[in-house]
């Protein structure tokens, strides 16, 4: 079996399970028709998805289960082109796409000059418009309709038994013939997505150039009007961005994107990789309890929670000081704390590259206190405190790196007989996480 036949059979199989679509009318005369009523019937448990390359495809309410109505409105541009409508059921698997093409026919008046009183007709794509009689100065304007892909018209004139014909360009701008979708909207990090590229007419799939940022694309099926690719996310990618072009046609370009998630929606857990990270910021717990906070940490995603739970461990550094007057003179005190903490981070929201997480944890707080009382020797003491914290993290994935900002509330008393301090309070931290290879 030849590859071409295999591909065709593949799409035939797809077409058999694709949504059934009917449109009325089947073509739109721009400036005259308001749009197209679309009826779709589909099967399966996934969501029915619909996309148009130009114009707007609006879902209409009502209808029995498995049936959906849309209304397609053409774009405000009046030049002729083909509206490509794609329908498929998004269920996490290989998409079965129904492609519907609606010609958008342009209307205009073709102005020409001929002999005064001549009878003028215009032929556009084998359709004849007119006749219109030329005025006393030989000018004539013939209303015509121009279907997509038509770039010239033939002006036919008759005057006193003589016939003339002239081919004139219509000046129709070239339309982008390509449309692409990347499905599902959210691709599991260890899963796969599918890129469908459809053409307004037919084309040579060998001329397609596909580049996917954040993933690898592999062609799995091709036909004369569409191509299907399987797309596998790269490690650590937060998004898949597909850019498609067609050699020899500078107007042919398409773009599609999907979000890469740490889990398959409704599916089994995703294996996120352990990560390391660092953060730095400022803490403030009132009075002189304020200073630098730095931490180095590691995280281990728990597979049982679909990658949303991450066990974290970190060692840190906090430093702050106090200078104050006493009855005998100034006293200088400085505290250095090295927190060793463990926590649990819960990713509560993922939108594109952005994440929102909550975190709770606790730890030990070894510290060193040095003081120079007035008129006396310096003194150093050490101690061991504890801390407990809760925080909110907002993250943004940039390739394999996730940048985050954290607002943390901490209880961390640091006390001895000579020291009453706090290494907690509120902290504002910024940092980055890197997945381990």
């Amino acid at each position, binding site marked *: 079996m030849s590859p071409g036949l295999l591909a065709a059979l593949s799409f035939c199989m797809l077409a058999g399970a694709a949504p059934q679509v009917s449109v009325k009318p089947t073509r739109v005369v721009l400036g005259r028709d308001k749009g197209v009523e679309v009826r779709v019937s589909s099967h399966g448990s996934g969501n029915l998805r619909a996309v148009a390359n130009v114009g707007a495809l609006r879902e209409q309410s009502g209808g029995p289960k498995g049936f959906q109505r849309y209304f397609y409105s053409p774009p405000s541009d009046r030049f002729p082109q083909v509206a490509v409508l794609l329908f498929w059921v998004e269920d996490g698997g290989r998409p079965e796409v129904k492609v519907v093409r609606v010609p958008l026919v342009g209307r205009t008046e073709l102005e020409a000059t001929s002999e005064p009183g001549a009878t003028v007709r215009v032929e556009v794509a084998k359709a004849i418009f007119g006749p219109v009689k030329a005025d006393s100065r030989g000018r004539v304007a013939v209303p015509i309709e121009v279907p997509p892909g038509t770039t010239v018209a033939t002006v036919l004139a008759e005057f006193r038994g003589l016939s003339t014909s002239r081919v004139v360009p219509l000046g129709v701008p070239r339309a982008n013939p390509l449309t692409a979708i990347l499905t599902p909207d959210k691709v599991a990090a260890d899963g796969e997505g599918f890129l469908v590229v459809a053409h307004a007419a037919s084309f040579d799939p060998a001329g397609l150039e596909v580049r996917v940022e954040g993933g690898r694309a592999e062609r799995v099926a091709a036909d004369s009007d569409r191509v299907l690719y399987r797309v596998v996310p790269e490690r650590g990618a937060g998004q898949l961005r597909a850019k498609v072009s067609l050699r020899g046609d500078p107007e042919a370009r398409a773009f599609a994107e999907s979000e890469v998630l740490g889990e398959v929606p409704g599916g089994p857990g995703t294996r996120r990789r352990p990560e390391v990270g660092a953060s730095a910021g400022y803490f403030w717990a009132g009075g002189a309890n304020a200073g630098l906070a730095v931490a180095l940490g590691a995280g281990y995603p728990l597979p049982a929670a679909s990658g949303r739970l991450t066990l974290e461990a970190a060692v840190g550094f906090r430093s702050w000081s106090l200078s104050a007057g006493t*009855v005998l003179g100034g006293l200088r005190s400085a505290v250095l704390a090295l927190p060793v903490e463990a926590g649990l981070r819960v990713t509560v929201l993922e939108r594109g590259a952005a994440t929102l997480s909550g975190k709770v944890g606790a730890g030990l707080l070894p510290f060193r206190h040095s003081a120079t009382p007035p008129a006396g020797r310096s003194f150093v003491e050490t101690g061991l405190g504890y801390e407990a914290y809760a925080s909110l993290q907002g993250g943004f994935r940039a390739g394999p790196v996730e940048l985050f900002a954290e607002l943390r509330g901490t209880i961390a008393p640091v006390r001895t007989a000579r020291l009453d*301090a706090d290494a907690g309070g509120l902290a504002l931290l910024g940092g980055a996480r890197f997945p381990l290879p």
Partner: protein
Amino acid sequence: MRPASPLSLSLLLGLAGCGPSALPAPTISSIEPGEMVASEGAFVVVTLDAVLPFRASYGKGEASVDPALVVTFGGVPLGPNQYESEGRLSVPVPTLFSPGSYDVSVRLADGREALAVDGFTVNPGLWPDSYSLERIDNQRRNVPFGVVIRAQGPNAASFRGNVTLSVNRGQVSPRTSGLFSAGIRAETVIVSGVFSQSVILTVTDSEGHTGASNSFTVN
């Protein structure tokens, strides 16, 4: 649960450095002069090396130091009662000590104590034979009045010591006089605890030489 190993705990604590959790004991680095004549008082400078009790309250942005202390010679509390500049404590030592060696101690407000065993020596002195007090008129209780005390005998003119004061009824303050000068001391005293009674004021030095006033009425 598996207990943490001693090694891991020591490493954890080692991260924070090493240091005592209690303030170091104070020390007396010098006592100048280290001796005096029993009949001549002295101002002694005791130099203390100490980290005073302190507290840093970061939440309030405040710090405090407790300068209170007690200096004793032979167990007898003497002034000053608080820390002085650079730890140099000026101690007036009265002539109330018999010849011999005495321990000197400084106890800080948190109980830490510096001790110089036999740190101060009292040498034998020359004492008056007795004391006389100029006539005292009748007085009112709790109202200060002046008393002139004169040393008597061959060593009277050189006496620069102290005497203790006492009354046969009630109480007198101060209990120890200031230093004599050229054998004379003018002291201001208060008698309390009596009413419409005759009182006799008596002075005594550390060698037992005494003197008594006339009997006067305290109203």
